[in-house]
């Protein structure tokens, strides 16, 4: 009978063979640990033959044997091939009286086997991979003693423990080899420490970068590789992480093999066991020197650019004023141009790229913040604003800045000349509302001179305001000449103030 034809087993022969081969034990040399076991079994049973038998495909192979003198035999004469189909063990007191073995050539001819007792070897997954068995040429009608069978069972379990340990060890060695292969092929430096912070591993890249001899930075020697100014900080940070188990992260300067210090990002994470105890730290060092330099350069450039932009407005404004000095008749004209330029400068202050230092003192960079700033010049002496901004706030970008600045500058100068702000007690409210996909700004003047109707002539300022809203912002501008004061409604698409961002969001 062949194991593959058995119908009662709850495993397949393919799985069984896979389990056997996973132990990587077939065709390995003899080993004392296993030889000792078969010798002991033979003596304990007072039998001539004992074997650690692994049932392979078409053959049985002996990891250890005594009394046989061969390492493998074909499967068709095997007793053990039958045994592994049994639950845990098989005993044959007299093979000549057993239908399964009476015609077996090993029974009918040399060596005339009669007695067999085998304990199945089961893999960790419970698959039978072979037996620990004992054979005799004499019939044993009483079979083995209970102590003999117990011994066989215990020793079979020891064989499997040996095999399982070997397999686990081999797996670990392989995963370690894999880790090293990965670690050594990484562009980053990799290191590892014991729970107390003792450095005991660095990958190839570390030695390549630093140029120090293998092993020379083990223990606490790593700290000496960093810039003297960074050592205390690195040490303190590392100590704290070791105590708390917090992830380690630091930027410090690491000495390269040529003596140049390069900015490096150091990071490490603890590995914990099931009970949460730290068993190791794994860390990396990444050369971020180029990145850091380009960041610094960018920051500097952006700062410089910011200063320049604002300064140009100041120079243009001064140039207009100086030019007008030669032409008293142009004074009013120059004044109007200057205030428009100044309003633009203010609006751009709110939208140009800022660094921490160049940010205007006003807190937020929103529409309300800008408008409040723009209308400051029209406040009462006490600082109470005469143009009150209410409603929904919004952000605006550089594309909208010019239009927003010109629109409200014109409305405010006009109100100061002819409207509510020209009279004591006159006020303006500016209400901004987000209404579905529209953003509506309503400018309402009250308390100024009574309005008699729309003016016959419109000035350039009015055209500018209309152009800003209807041309640039794609909205509608409506003027209502109410008796108590002018009301202006600018109805904009909600995206008009931040078109670039709206476009980005849509993309």
């Amino acid at each position, binding site marked *: 009978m062949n194991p593959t034809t058995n119908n009662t087993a709850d495993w397949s022969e393919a799985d069984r063979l896979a389990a056997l081969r996973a132990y990587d034990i077939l065709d390995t040399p003899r080993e004392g640990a296993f030889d000792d076991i078969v010798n002991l079994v033979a003596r304990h049973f007072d039998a001539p033959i004992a074997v650690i038998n692994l049932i392979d495909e078409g053959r049985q192979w002996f990891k250890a044997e005594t009394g046989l003198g061969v390492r493998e035999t074909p499967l068709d004469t095997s007793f053990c091939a039958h045994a592994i189909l049994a639950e845990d063990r098989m005993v044959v007191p007299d093979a000549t009286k057993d239908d399964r073995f009476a015609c077996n050539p090993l029974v009918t001819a040399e060596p005339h086997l009669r007695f067999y007792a085998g304990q199945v070897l089961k893999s960790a997954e419970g698959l039978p991979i072979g037996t620990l068995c004992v054979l005799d040429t004499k019939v044993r009608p009483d079979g083995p003693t209970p102590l003999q069978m117990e011994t066989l069972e215990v020793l079979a379990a020891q064989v499997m423990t040996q095999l399982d340990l070997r397999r686990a060890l081999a797996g670990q060695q392989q995963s370690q080899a894999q880790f090293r292969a990965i670690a050594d092929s990484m562009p980053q430096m990799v290191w590892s420490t014991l729970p107390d912070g003792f450095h005991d591993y660095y990958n190839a890249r570390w030695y390549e970068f630093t140029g120090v001899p293998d092993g020379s930075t083990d223990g606490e020697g790593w700290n000496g590789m960093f810039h003297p100014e960074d050592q205390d900080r690195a040490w303190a940070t590392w100590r704290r992480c070791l105590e708390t188990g917090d992830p380690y992260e630091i930027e410090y300067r690491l000495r390269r093999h040529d003596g140049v210090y390069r900015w490096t990002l150091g990071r490490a994470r603890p590995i914990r066991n099931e009970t949460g105890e730290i068993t190791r730290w794994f860390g990396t060092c990444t050369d971020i020197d180029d990145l850091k330099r380009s960041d610094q350069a960018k920051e500097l450039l952006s700062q410089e650019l*910011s*200063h320049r932009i*604002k*300064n140009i*407005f*100041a*120079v*243009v*404004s*001064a*140039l207009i*004023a*100086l030019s007008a*000095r030669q032409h008293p008749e142009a004074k009013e004209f120059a*004044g109007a141009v*200057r*205030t428009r*330029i*100044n309003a633009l*400068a*203010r609006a751009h*202050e709110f939208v140009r790229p*800022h660094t921490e*230092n*160049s*940010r*205007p*003192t006003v807190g937020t960079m929103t529409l309300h913040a800008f408008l409040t700033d723009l209308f*400051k*010049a029209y*406040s009462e*002496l*006490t*600082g109470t604003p005469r143009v009150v901004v209410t409603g929904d706030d919004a952000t605006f970008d550089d594309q909208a800045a010019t239009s927003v600045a010109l629109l409200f500058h014109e409305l405010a100068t006009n109100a100061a000349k002819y409207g509510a702000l020209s009279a004591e007690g006159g006020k303006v409210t500016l209400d901004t509302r987000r209404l579905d996909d529209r953003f509506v700004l309503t400018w309402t003047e009250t308390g100024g001179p009574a309005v008699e109707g729309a003016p016959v002539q419109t000035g350039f300022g009015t055209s500018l305001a209309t152009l800003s809203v209807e041309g640039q912002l794609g909205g509608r501008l409506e003027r209502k000449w109410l008796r108590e004061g002018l009301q202006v409604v600018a109805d904009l698409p909600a995206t008009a103030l931040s078109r670039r961002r709206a476009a980005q969001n849509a993309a």
Partner: protein
Amino acid sequence: MTARILIIEDEALVAMELRFVLEDLGHDVVATVADARSAREVVQETDVDLALVDIHLSDGPTGVALGRELGQDLGVSVLFMTANPGMVRGGVAGTIGVLSKPTDEAAVQKAVDYALRRRQGQPVLYAPPELQLFG
């Protein structure tokens, strides 16, 4: 009320326009200088009531330290005038405040008047809205 005023500004056009505005108001502009060292020399040689100090000068962003020194140690009233008021957001000891550039004659006049009144110990109820005060 006329005063002796020092303009510390490295943009020549802006400095010149400021000088005209102050002279129109009847003030005596003792000098316009473009860097911190020249400013110290002027203050050591001449009496100065008020200094209008830009932050970015021809020798770098030296205006903040200069303003502090003039205000705290040398008895000059100091108003910063800068395109980048964020640089002195936290305030500068011994100085009055900051005026954001570009600005106009009216704002300059109000800010200078305010500074001079404070210098003379006159009661000043309200600071002009364009002037951001320190402290």
